[in-house]
């Protein structure tokens, strides 16, 4: 159960002249909660999309559970046990909340011909899906149309669906944003609980308190490059990270460009 579950090696993608992700390396160990941080436009969501197969990298490699997955389509990567949420929520609006989760429960069926004759409306499937909804606290709304839910509930629905898919790794893309304080507290408990059940978690987070509190290790991106890596305490002290978020101290503006990272 030890060793790296996900390895990202020299990962890059260019959109025209824009290097959205530029030579990023990191490794996530099994059972870790790993934070991916950075200011807006740093390339966090693009990195997620590269790992989950939405984009094909221009360069570099992604290894998941001993298998190279860059270049595979999203559905094939999902089938390996990698579940994800979307920062801009993507529910199936005209399906019920329960049916949304049942779609995700089909993850092991879709590659097989048996999906042509296996019913998704069996009592067993429904119970399993309800159990997932209970974990995220949506069981009361199971029969509601997903398109009618407010954002906070949709974020939890995203997590329930991703949980059904992500047997090994869960990618959470700003799942905490737009939530109230008590909802955040509940979700933190849930994320720890998910890890306790043996699922590794990679999260993108803007809320510093949440990210620092949850993550075992953190990578900070800025302008598509890795700025820093380490445990939360070290990241909080890192000069280059503080500079990326807050800007440099006045009087240091004489040296523009990314070169002088250790301005003092």
């Amino acid at each position: 159960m030890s060793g790296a579950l996900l390895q990202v090696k020299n990962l890059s993608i260019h959109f025209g002249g824009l290097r959205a992700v530029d030579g990023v390396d990191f490794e996530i160990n099994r059972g870790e909660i790993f934070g991916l941080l950075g200011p807006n436009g740093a390339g966090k969501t693009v990195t997620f999309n590269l790992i989950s197969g939405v984009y094909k990298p221009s360069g570099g490699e992604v290894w998941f559970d001993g298998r190279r997955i860059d270049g595979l389509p999203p559905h094939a990567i999902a089938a390996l046990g990698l579940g994800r949420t979307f920062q801009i929520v993507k529910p199936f609006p005209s399906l019920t909340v329960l049916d949304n989760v049942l779609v995700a429960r089909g993850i092991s069926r879709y590659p097989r011909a048996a999906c042509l004759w296996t019913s998704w409306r069996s009592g067993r499937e429904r119970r399993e899906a309800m159990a997932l909804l209970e974990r995220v606290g949506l069981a009361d709304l199971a029969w509601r149309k997903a398109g009618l839910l407010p954002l906070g509930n949709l974020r939890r629905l995203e997590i329930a669906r991703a949980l059904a898919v992500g047997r090994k790794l869960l990618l959470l893309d700003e799942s905490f944003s737009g939530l109230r304080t008590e909802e955040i507290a509940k979700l933190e408990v849930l994320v720890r609980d998910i890890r306790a059940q043996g699922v590794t978690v990679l999260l993108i987070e803007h809320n510093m308190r949440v990210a620092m509190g949850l993550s075992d290790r953190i990578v900070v991106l800025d302008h598509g490059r890795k700025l820093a890596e380490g445990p939360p305490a070290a990241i909080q002290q890192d000069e280059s990270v503080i500079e990326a978020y807050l800007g440099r101290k006045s009087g240091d503006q004489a040296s523009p460009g990314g070169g002088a990272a250790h301005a003092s």
Partner: protein
Amino acid sequence: MSGYLVTILTQIAIQAIVVCGLNVIVGYAGQISLGHAAFMGIGAYSAALLSTRAGLSFWTALPLVLAICALCGLLLGLPSLKLKHDFLAITTIGINFIVQAVFLYVPFFGGAMGISGIPRVQFLGEPVRGVHFLYLCLACLGVVTVVSWLFTRVFAGLACFALREEEAAAASMGISPVRFKLLAFMLGTMFAGLGGSLYAHYMRFVSADDFSFPLSVSFLAMLVLGGMGSLLGPLVGALILGALPELFRPLAEFRILFYALILLLMIRFQPGGILGEASLVRRRLYPLLFGGAK
């Protein structure tokens, strides 16, 4: 039943079968198709050629017809993998015209003369005609409806719903857009092919003009009217749009006007169709019929 009524109902039943196929593609999988008459034509021409040239009966030809249609559905479904919305709609219109042109200009398909002399369907050594042919069509419609219903209950059908709603999310849950869109096209085309085969043996003559673009439009109109994605919507739509021109016959020239008026009113006030989500029938009639289950 009068011969007139049997004729109208037979045509409606055949069209309902084809619209059930369109429902799988448009209603379940969310892929717009404005070329469904072409798929019906492929079924009709396959049945016509297999019975007149190869001497096969309706029954022995049927598996072949369905296989040919499934293959064509697979090929003609390929554009749906790259195109969305209006671009796919335009492409499927193009497919309709191309298929029609192939029937018209390739001598193998009989050219402008079409294919005539298609034998009647035989059952237990007797030709099936009149009201008995209507029963055959209704039986086929029953099979198609049951298969549609089963499809909505299995994971493959659920995968199609998910693709219709939100493709990126569906893919992140292990659903291959390629596989399940093509599956929907295959199933929908097979239904259309069954309808086409019945049509060929009913009319006993097929020509390219029978499967033109306006017919595709009226199939889509039937589906929209009845309710996209609902199980019985295709039946209701085919019944209403099939019967209306007959009911309005005394109005002569004005009947197309009434036909258009009804469509416009539907789109304005019941965009989900008669049996669609949140339609009047669902909200008012279903609770009366089924005691308000949902």
